[in-house]
């Protein structure tokens, strides 16, 4: 239990998917203009990442490893994750319209997101068990959401600040992201 907690903390803060591993930068910049959008995106990522992490773990153990075709990991993961997200989108739309209204519009955005893909590959690389995979996927997604929401808050402030023309919008966004990443570096050594 203690191990799992340490794993979660390390995934959220120390190895933050956005600010330490720099995966998933497109939604990080694209959906961080408004707090409202950022929160929706964060929820959707948590939802999809947990599901994708688990299903790719199953695919890896019972298909790739069993059939000895590990070299097809990346390409088959892409296919599986994309299909999964599509399936979940359809399922939610029909069965849980309330949840779909909140998350649905973000789902297609995550389909081929490198953060999702990256977490799935990390899970395999680290040889996590099924339970560990579930915890790490969830924790990485929480880390993603945390960074995204923090960043959206910062960007909303920047919007009314005086920014030189050449640095406006995405440029200052990237600079800010770099500084936030630096602050996250201070978590190193915590575990």
């Amino acid at each position, binding site marked *: 239990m203690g191990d799992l907690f340490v794993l979660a903390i390390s995934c959220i803060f120390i190895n933050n998917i956005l600010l330490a591993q720099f995966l998933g930068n497109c939604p990080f910049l*694209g*959906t961080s*203009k*408004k707090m409202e*959008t950022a929160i*929706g*995106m964060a929820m959707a990522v948590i939802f999809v990442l947990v599901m994708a992490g688990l299903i790719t773990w199953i*695919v890896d153990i019972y*298909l790739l490893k069993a*059939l000895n*075709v590990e*070299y*097809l990991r990346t*390409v*088959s993961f892409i*296919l*599986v994750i*994309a*299909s999964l997200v*599509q*399936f979940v989108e*359809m*399922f939610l*739309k*029909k*069965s849980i319209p309330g949840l779909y209204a909140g998350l649905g*519009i*973000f789902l*297609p*955005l995550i389909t081929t997101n490198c953060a999702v893909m990256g977490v799935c590959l990390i899970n395999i690389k680290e040889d996590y068990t099924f339970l560990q995979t579930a915890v790490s996927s969830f924790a990485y997604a929480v880390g993603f959401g945390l960074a995204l929401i923090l960043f959206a808050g910062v960007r909303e402030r920047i919007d*009314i*600040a*005086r920014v030189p023309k050449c640095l406006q919008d995405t440029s200052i966004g990237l600079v800010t992201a770099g500084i936030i990443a630096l602050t996250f570096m201070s978590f190193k050594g915590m575990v």
Partner: protein
Amino acid sequence: MIPALLFMLGIGAVCGIVLSLSSKVFYVYEDPRISQVENNLAGANCGGCGYAGCSAAADAIVSGKEMPSLCVINSKEGTQAVAKIMGINAGSAESPMSYNMCEGGLRADNKYHYMGISSCKAMSLVFGGKRVCGVGCIGLGDCVKACQFNAVHLGSNGYPVVDDDQCVGCGACQKACPKEIIEVKTLSEKLMKFNQVNDPLAPCAQTCPAEINIPRYINQLREGKYKEAVQTIRMRNPLPLACGRVCPHPCEDQCRRGVEDEPVSINQLKRFVADYEMNTGSRIPITCAPDTGKKIAVIGGGPAGLSCAFFLRRIGHQVNIFEAMPKLGGMLRYGIPEYRLPKKVLEWDIQGILDLGIKAFTHLNFGVDFGLGSLMASGYEAVFLGVGAWEDYSLGIDGEDLNGCFTGINFLQRISSGEKIKLGRTAAVVGGGNTAVDCARTLLRLGLDKVYIVYRRTRKEMPANEVEIVASEEEGIHFVFLAAPTRVVGDADKKCTQLEYLQMQLGEPDASGRRRPEPIEGSETLLDVDMVISAIGQSPDASFKKHDPHARMTQLELTRWNTIDNDPAILQSSIPYIFTGGDAATGPALVVDAIGSGRRAARSIDCFLKGEPVEPVKDSLQEKRIEESIFTSVDGVKQIQRAKMPELHVNQRLNSMVEVDLVLPKDSAHKEAERCLNCCRICYNPDSDFPISK
């Protein structure tokens, strides 16, 4: 190689089968327009619109939450394609445009020295901005920064100027503005805008009953943009030629220049640009919103009816006008004589309105030839009742029915219709209003030797327009003041020979603020005249209520002055689908009042047809003044003479009905426009020798 291929084929097939099955199982109907719209968006999933991805944006557009121009990186063609897809929805195809009300910007004083970040939003957090003017533009250009299409730039006066060709109506500027100065509105919204308490309005624009943006059109005239000036006027007044001639211009009484100097001759300038359009011979195109498919009947083709029809047509409704007289124009045609408003000029104004696609049916008397029942059966969804006030009050004295006695409007109307009336040599016109003066001046032109105006108070109390009184004095009309007619004396043939009146003296002021005339006992005097015209006021002819057999008609409530009872803020009568305005609702008033009420009724009718509650405009300024904008002294104004209205010499005008007042020549019009201080709520431009301090 083979196992890899087989593996991928297998996993692909499984995914494909699962997805295709689930698309059947989990099928949910979705508006097909969403995917059509999405195909026409930029497809970059950039998030620039504030929505997460293009499909979310498409959803928002189709659900009507956002405009077709939502996508900030979409091409103009893409935006148009989206608009076209959405155009299937009635009413939403009208493209909005950014529009700025404030013309102040840098002109207002500062309350404090601001050193914070350069953003309107930030500055407005500190006491609503540094400018003294509470509603005006802050001028740091948040709207300029917000615009993705380079359609907004800050003009020389420090306020945003919108380039209509670039603007796609995305609304970004409106969202960025903390002051509600720049607003994105459709044409209909702009046409149906009424003065509100927090609007940046000059005193003249607050006063104008039609709510014309006076400083704006004078400014456009000054810049030589006559067409734009006419368009500015037409946003509020469909009859610029007629109004430019007959309006008693209450706006000029409030002119800020008038505090220190003579007021700007606003109406002359309106006439100048309106005449310019007529003299070029080609009409400036008038834009209308897309058709809504709703049908409205306008009863009465006078200024109120024409105005209501014009605005309803411009916001996309189908309008038909029903008129009892042979031609449209109402009092403008039949009550105002040719020498003040030539029929040819009026015809041009009216034709311009009909050209929008309004049908007019004449010789149709409401209640007799058609009624409420037949209108409803023909599919009209609302009715505007603008029947005017055509019933003359009678004097109530003996001998009123003798030969040679007439009533004012009836007389003017018969002359205007070209009827030959047997005239006398001398005439007395009883009354002091415009109708009386019109009758007297018309009689003089018809060749009478001597015309008296008999009025029971003095010249100071005469309600007629000052210019009209001056003109009639010049033309040699005799005034008999402080005289109350008591009897018309006739001879054996029942022909009028004399008018007997009682002399009066002025007593205490009455409710209207005018001193009440009191008769002097035993002061009966006789005036030798063979014609007597009583022009002491009119009331609406409400006989249609009696004649119309439709059961609903009995519910139409009238006031004790025979006017149609309504709520003055929304002009709805006691029957919900009947709206009213002009003289029929207020009793005799100005042409420009009727025009203003026509537009107000159009707004209420539009609300009514859309199924929205018909409520007064929020914070409506109607008839009130904004206190902070009314000054008691004005710095920086020097005396510059007001342009003198050119007019025909008295010798030339008395033997014909030729128009007396002439249009200003171009150079004097421009000189007069230069006199305008281009006021706003509290800003104004002092005369050129003074530094801009206010």
